[in-house]
């Protein structure tokens, strides 16, 4: 009696999770894999094949965009880490009490607005008639209006800004748990600032660094709004290719194939990152 009741409650608790994982994760992805191997021969017949994948490798525009997206995402992730680490260090180790929670809030506040609004915020600053441009003119440093939008730098600025919080949070969490004495022992035994950072702090923070990098990398690789809005028409982000296939060209088969490739790319890079840093997914996410 008792065991059946507890089993029932276990199933009730598991149901939302199972529904979510099956309906929203598993089924759509399986469906997408299926669609990606369909070849349209005529309006009412379907054949199976790898034509869409062949297209990807023969059409240089596809795989170049693919590579470019991967490399720029990696660079964005790295840049986010470099910027987030001092912030996280300050919040976790130096700030105390009230100012600590205030700083944490300050990192969180931008995320109350949608990604769209945040991106438009940057556009207001960077566009030709924007704030930075008019300031530069007012200072007399430039003669005419400067367009700072629609290039790779603008895209990376937007992406770093979007990823920052997701890097800061895991870093703060790991750095918070570090015993102050470890740093002191590092100095006490003869280490300088660089040594203590390299030999003691970074190895300790590695789980946080890797988990932050994974999240930021995935977000960046799969982001759509920021590259489109800040990079302009020619930003050539891979998600735009997928959008074009699905919506503009109504070629679901090709779109699905590109989607599957993106999934494979992100999985491979995350796996390599874990291997290189010597971390396991369980340790990083646990």
């Amino acid at each position, binding site marked *: 009696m008792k065991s059946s009741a507890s089993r029932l409650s276990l199933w009730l608790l598991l149901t939302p999770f199972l529904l979510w994982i099956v309906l929203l994760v598993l089924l759509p992805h399986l469906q997408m894999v299926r669609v990606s191997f369909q070849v349209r021969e005529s309006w009412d017949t379907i054949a199976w094949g790898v034509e869409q994948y062949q297209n990807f490798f023969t059409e240089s525009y596809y795989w170049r965009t693919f590579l470019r997206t991967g490399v720029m995402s990696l660079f964005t992730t790295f840049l986010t880490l470099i910027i987030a680490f001092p912030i996280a260090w300050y919040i976790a180790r130096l700030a105390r009490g009230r100012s600590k929670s205030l700083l944490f809030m300050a990192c969180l506040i931008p995320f109350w607005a949608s990604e769209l609004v945040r991106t438009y915020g940057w556009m207001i600053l960077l566009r030709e008639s924007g704030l930075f441009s008019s300031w530069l003119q007012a200072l007399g440093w430039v003669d005419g209006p400067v367009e700072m939008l629609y290039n790779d730098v603008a895209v990376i600025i937007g992406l770093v800004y979007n990823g920052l919080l997701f890097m800061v949070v895991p870093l703060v969490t790991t750095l918070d748990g570090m*015993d102050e*004495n*470890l740093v*002191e*022992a*590092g*100095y*006490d*035994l*003869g*280490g*300088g600032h660089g*040594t203590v950072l390299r*030999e*003691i702090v970074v*190895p*300790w923070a*590695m789980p946080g660094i890797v988990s932050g990098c994974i999240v930021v990398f995935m977000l960046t690789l799969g982001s759509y709004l920021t590259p489109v809005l800040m990079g302009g028409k020619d930003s050539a982000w891979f998600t735009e290719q997928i959008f074009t296939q699905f919506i503009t060209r109504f070629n679901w088969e090709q779109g699905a194939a590109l989607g599957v490739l993106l999934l494979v790319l992100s999985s491979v890079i995350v796996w390599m990152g874990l291997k290189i840093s010597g971390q396991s997914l369980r340790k990083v996410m646990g």
Partner: protein
Amino acid sequence: MDSDLFCEGLVRRFGANAAVDHISLDVPAGTFFSILGPSGCGKTTLLRLLAGFDKPDEGEIHIRGQRMNDVPPNRRPVNMVFQHLALFPTMSVGDNIGYGLKRRKVTLAERRKRIARVLEQVGLPGLENRDPQELSGGQRQRVALARCLVLEPTLLLLDEPLGALDLKLREQMKVELKHLQKQFGTTFVYITHDQSEAMVMSDRVAVMRDGRFDQVAPPEELYREPATPFVAGFVGDNNRLSGALVAIRDNLAEIRLDDGALVQGRVVAGELEIGQRAELFIRPESLVLSADRVGPGLSVMEAKVRTTLFDGANSRLEAENGSRLVYARLPQDGSAPRLPPGSAIGLAWDPALARVFGAENP
């Protein structure tokens, strides 16, 4: 002068409160020097000043004749064993010990040799490749020591490193630390709130209270000749009796206890006035159970048995004198008479073994 550590007039203030208040000390080379005090007495602050993690507001720190005030911690010939050891969890035992050598640009082959040697010296040969987390508490303790001793520091600071160990291991490590100190010949500055640790291990002990040293002396002198009532009460077990000072004759003070008994004890120092409140300290082992045969010159106090506490060689009698609890050591050979609770007894002592101080104003 052969002094490894010499401090003069050290002061460290936090706001209006001086955690370290004009402390001067002089530790000869090769000494095991302990700083003993209750928590919050400023001993950790003092140690951090010596290590260089904190700067004194006033005063001088000299280590082997060199002024250290402006030297950062990584350039001082001083290493520290932290309270929770602070072994680097991301490094193996060997890398922990090699960390400091690496900073000194010792070659890999030489590093390996020295790591193996120091591990042998602390009794953990061949454990280089283990993770600190895999070791027992006592082993970790030794790794922390080895990590410092391999650098051959002038001064080793120890911040209550035995606090986290269980009782049995602590007793064992106490003895071992003392032997290691003799073996390496390094000067140890050890802080603790546990008087037994300080007594067993040290050559000299400084008793610290409210940022100042009450007394600096070898352990036995602290025990037998406490300089202040605080030291008398803090170091070892002691019975504290209070009364009014009646007379002083040949360094012997006569005190009228609150229950009316007239007793005697040695006056140590300070100006005492006849009639003022005074406190007499007498150790449990100096108290003799006296049925009726009180020798001449002994002081006697009436008490009522409350209970006997059997603890092997450390068995004690708990008795009441008025509202005050008094402890007396029971004879170790079991020759003590049966003492049913409630029975009246006399407790006698040799006045030369008791210490009298003027009562401190609370």
